[in-house]
């Protein structure tokens, strides 16, 4: 029990924060209902994938500055491939784009391993490369998305055995997020590969001496990051119906959410749940600021202050805990 609390305490408090914010939201806007929650989840979707992409590499002791650019590239690729194509063609596009993310991510990892240049520089360089590639694919926002893809994240699905009242609170987008992440993350976390990812993040030397193939594990971590980023790119295309070659604000947001979610930037610690709950919190804060009609220039100040305050609070708690 104490192990669980120590490990999950931060996530639990984040979740409590989310619930509290949700109650506040209902107080501000009593009509805030399941449809609005659905909107929230759709807004969360690309951020959640971006942060998942970032989390994997951060746990492995790295950082990936190319997350947002990777999302842009996969998004424009998907959108331009689906432009004018049939609905069925999209069935091919989705796996293609995901594979592309996986491969490009692996290339990131490979470059880090082979050149031995620090990850932050390699991914900064690939940030430019991927951005450039996105511009070559589409030099202005455009393309299209298959209708079924767009439908995949809007509305809810009737889940047998659940009353409609509850079902309404489980939007398709949330299901999609949970499924995509669970399929990849849960088996991984329990596998030896998952342990190896934590191990190289925690101590590369100790991992190597424990027989972990460090280079291969690092490449796989970046490949997974690319895969999640490709999911994020698809999520962008699904929600907007187009692809935009200029990366959105997902890079810094992903790093912020990783830290808010209790994943140490040094690597080796944390999980995926925390950062994703953090994304929900950050998006809900945004909603509340809009609902309250706060001066938009002040919202930047508030968002920054919240970020700093939460992390400071966390640091303060750990400091107290240590004494």
């Amino acid at each position, binding site marked *: 029990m104490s192990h669980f609390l120590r490990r999950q305490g931060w996530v639990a408090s984040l979740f409590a924060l989310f619930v509290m914010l949700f109650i506040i939201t209902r107080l501000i806007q009593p009509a805030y209902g399941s449809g609005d929650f659905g909107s929230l989840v759709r807004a969360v979707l690309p951020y959640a994938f971006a942060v998942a992409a970032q989390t994997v590499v951060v746990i492995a002791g790295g950082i990936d500055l190319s997350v947002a650019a990777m999302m842009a590239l996969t998004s424009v690729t998907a959108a331009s491939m689906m432009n004018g194509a049939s609905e069925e063609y999209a069935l091919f596009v989705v796996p293609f784009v995901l594979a592309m993310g996986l491969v490009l991510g692996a290339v990131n990892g490979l470059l880090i391993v082979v050149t031995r240049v620090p990850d932050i520089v390699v991914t900064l360089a690939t940030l430019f490369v991927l951005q450039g590639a996105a511009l070559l694919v589409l030099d202005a926002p455009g393309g299209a998305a298959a209708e079924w893809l767009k439908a995949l994240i809007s509305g809810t699905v009737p889940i047998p055995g659940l009353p409609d009242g509850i079902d309404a609170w489980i939007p398709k987008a949330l299901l999609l997020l949970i499924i995509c992440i669970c399929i990849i993350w849960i088996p991984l976390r329990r596998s030896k590969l998952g342990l190896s990812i*934590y191990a190289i993040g*925690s*101590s590369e030397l*100790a991992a190597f001496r*424990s027989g972990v193939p460090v280079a291969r594990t690092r490449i796989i971590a970046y490949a997974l990051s690319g895969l999640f980023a490709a999911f994020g790119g698809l999520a962008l295309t699904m929600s907007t119906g187009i692809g935009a070659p200029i990366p959105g604000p997902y890079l810094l947001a992903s790093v912020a959410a990783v830290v808010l979610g209790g994943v140490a930037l040094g690597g080796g610690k944390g999980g995926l749940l925390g950062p994703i709950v953090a994304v929900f919190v950050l998006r809900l804060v945004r909603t509340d600021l809009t609902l309250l009609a706060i001066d938009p220039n002040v919202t930047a100040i508030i968002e920054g202050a919240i970020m700093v305050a939460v992390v400071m609070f966390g640091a303060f708690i750990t400091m107290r805990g240590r004494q």
Partner: protein
Amino acid sequence: MTSTPLLDASGVAKNYGAVAALRNASLSVLPGEVHALMGANGAGKSTLVKILTGAVPASAGRILIRGEARDVRSPAAARRAGLLPVYQEPSLIPDLDVLSNLRLTGTPVEPFRAWVRELGIPDLDIRDTARDIPLAVLRVLDLARALAVEPDVLLLDEMTAALPANLAEKVLEVVRRQGDSGRAVIFISHRFVEISALCDRATVLRDGETVGVVDIVPGVEEKIVELMLGARIVKTHVAARGANQAAATAASRPRLGVRNLRFGTKLNDVSFDLADGEVAGVVALEGQGQDELFAALAGSIRPSAGAIEVDGQPVKFTHPIDAIRAGLAYVPGDRAEALAMQRSVRENIALPFSAALRNWGPINMRRERAKVVSAIERLRIDTRAQGEVQRLSGGNQQKVTIARWIAADARTILCFDPTRGIDVGTKQEIYKLLRELAGNGKSVLFYTSELEEVQRVCDRVIVIFGGRVVDIFPVEEADEPALMRAAYGLPRGAKADIGILADPHSSSPETSDSPGTTP
């Protein structure tokens, strides 16, 4: 015995840039043998182990395993070949719990648990994160993890250096049984007691070269030391202080007074005095509160009750700088804690000079250089790789941690196991140094996990058990059995069988480098 060697390495060389860590090392280990690998600090023992287990690629050399040439390229490959190391630094993944660490290396859990119990740690929770486990226990876990897969050759790099006596004993027992069961162990240690109690043969390295292989027979220590040190044969007589000194120290006001110190559940009521010109030894088993005592004196933790007095004045430390200002300098046992590994020897030694806000300005390079050089010379630090401390051998790193406070001219030095992993020659130097410091009026509080050191260096012995001072007695009464009994919390004078170190047969050859301190 004419069986093929389990492991046969010859002509092994390794260059780190301009530094040749190994030139021409060879090592041959027979089945059923506990084989000692000996050498002064920086001789290349750890490097050889790393090469044999694939952690570091060799620049040259040939390695045969069971007579077959094998290219061991990674620790995983070595593991498959039946070679399991316990390196000088713990290699559990700090952020994973013990269980995950086992799964990562494919170690079966039940045998591991059995070994852990056998090695004297009955209450391990395998869900504990490695980072939260004390260093000594980590080392034992490292060993248990290696033992659990029943390796053909076990390579132990200074396994016992960081262990308190009770754990060290168990390790020795287990290692000896490994040898008896037909497997082989390569055992690195600077402690002759252990070598003679345990090993069959010894390979001696000097400056990266194998200079001899000897059978361990009573009296061979002299020869090994000669081989190890080459021309540099040191025969120092570190005498404890003379009787006149004793009188002087007793009379003067205590330099440091500790009064009823408490910290959580770890320290319950510790009181003692430390006089000017005195070296007081602290003896304790693992985890009896000695870490907390030193941390409190160093200003790293705040005691929950009790008082510390310096020169009769009560002091309160909120940060190590307060302790340093009061003249207390702390040398931690774990050198990784004390050194900026990527910086030079010089910068590491000069670090305390810049600590205070008013010393943030330009540095007087000439003055600094003079001080640093004199400290380096005084401790005979091997400066071949001085550009980065991490390239020094373990022993030389350890010396840098002490040199810092010599250069800063601290009045009281709190040494926590300073000779951990240091070769005999260097040990002698450090003993001499501590005595010299005491002779110059400095005070030294000296915790050691090697009981025999107490007799060499200390004037008085403070025994801690269960967070309390259970006994304080003069060094004259501190022979090893007495210390051992006291450390176990037994009243002085009681008799009890406490393991092989008490066995007169295995400890009797221990004469070569302990000249005449036992009464």
